[in-house]
């Protein structure tokens, strides 16, 4: 099996998949901790459906580079959802649900009415579940993912303290003079970028798993924000790699295999955390 794996690693598209998979897993886990703590776990699902809707419009318009439309639309929706705040008429989860199902239905209807492919069901299924999308990346797409991931990691590293403050106590952060609205905007933009990238790895419907499971698994074992963040990053990368290797060795869909590995690893962390009482700070 190891020999077969090394044989597969000689294929360029497998190496591209590993690179992009690792980067996406890393970026999604970093922001996942913030989203889980701010009770916005389901935003990944909502934004991925918006990205699907934008992708449908881009497909109908026959755009060569669909990112030109998908990224700005997703960023705009992320800003709308995350910046509405306490005084919005339609609050958090309702807004996410409304935009999410609306975009999904609209996108699928557009692709049916203005079909540009002979295998519509296959294209939609592949986008929603990410069965082999990660293994069919071009070099340009890989470099784009790399560039965006580097930006996300650097942003998180430089703004770590502010993100920490805004995550745990936004009112206190505002009271001491932190521009919480600006940092919420940054978080929203970064989340949108990660969601668009993650669609390639696990598909639209399973993105939430990449965001939620690493953070929740880390919280079973650690108490401090720093340790939870670092562990969730390592956890996410390991699970993504393991899921990718299993899928290419045994011929399973990539997206659902990665999420299955995430689920098993979460239960493992839960049991370890329950047995050991958590690793105290």
């Amino acid at each position, binding site marked *: 099996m190891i020999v077969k794996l090394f044989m597969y690693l000689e294929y360029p598209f*497998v*190496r591209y998949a590993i*690179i992009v998979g690792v980067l996406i897993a890393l970026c999604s886990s970093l922001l996942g901790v913030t989203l889980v703590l701010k009770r916005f776990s389901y935003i990944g699902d909502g934004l991925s459906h918006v990205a699907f809707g934008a992708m449908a419009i881009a497909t109908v318009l026959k755009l060569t580079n669909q990112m030109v439309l998908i990224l700005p639309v997703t960023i705009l929706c992320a800003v709308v959802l995350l910046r509405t705040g306490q005084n919005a008429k339609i609050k958090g989860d309702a807004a996410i649900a409304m935009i999410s199902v609306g975009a999904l239905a609209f996108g699928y209807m557009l692709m049916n009415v203005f079909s540009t492919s002979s295998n519509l069901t296959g294209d939609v299924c592949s986008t929603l579940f990410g*069965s*082999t999308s990660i*293994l069919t990346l071009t070099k340009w797409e890989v470099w784009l993912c790399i560039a965006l991931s580097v930006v996300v*990691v650097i942003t998180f*590293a430089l703004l770590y303290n502010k993100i920490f403050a805004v995550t745990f106590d936004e009112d206190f952060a505002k009271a001491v003079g932190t521009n919480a609205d600006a940092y919420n905007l940054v978080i929203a933009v970064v989340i949108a970028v990660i969601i668009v990238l993650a669609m390639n790895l696990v598909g639209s419907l399973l993105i939430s798993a990449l965001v939620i499971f690493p953070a929740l698994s880390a919280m079973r074992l650690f108490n401090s924000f720093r340790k939870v963040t670092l562990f969730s990053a390592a956890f996410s990368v390991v699970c993504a790699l393991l899921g990718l290797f299993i899928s290419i060795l045994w011929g*399973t869909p990539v997206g659902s295999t990665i999420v299955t590995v995430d689920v098993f690893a979460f239960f493992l962390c839960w049991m370890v955390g329950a047995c050991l009482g958590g690793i105290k700070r």
Partner: protein
Amino acid sequence: MKRAMILMLTMTMSLLTWGCAETPDNSASSDNLDALYGSSQIAVVTPEGYNVYDKETGEIINDDAESEEYAEADESISEQSADLMGDGTPAFARSTDGVDVDLTALSSTMVYSQVYNMMVTPENFTGKVVKMQGSYSCFYDSTTGNYYYACIIQDATACCSQGIEFILTDDYKYPQDYPTDGDIITVQGVFDTYYEGENMYCTLRNAKLL
């Protein structure tokens, strides 16, 4: 925290450097073939040797084995191919069973991805002997009046299909020697591309059923 991030970034960049490193181009590029045979013709490797096709009509034009021109070209190919990859490995060097791209040895996820890759970058596979297994499909196009035969494979969720057309050798007579629609077949042939109108298609030439 910043140190941890920088360490993560450094490791990631190392991974990227390894991953994006160019692998030797194992294909006989069409530039090399064009230089030898001229831009209107293309040489395609077969298990028995080489066939030269007219790019526009797709007809074989090297039937005359005694032609001096092709004898010289054959000799020239042997000399040229000795170092087409720059490391002494002949461009048309094959594994012991004569197959350059064996899709039957890959998992279903890898097969689908590799076939997708072949469709997107056919120039990297032109001239290579390909072996694949899938379900047989026959399609008659009333606009061209031709029958097209393909080997179809599905991805892991079985919702998406990819396929490669194949053209069996003259030893096979239609319909008695051809499979039934939906049969699982193993086919081996030489990967090539051709044009019908403005569209380019991929096919396995001189194919045989195993």
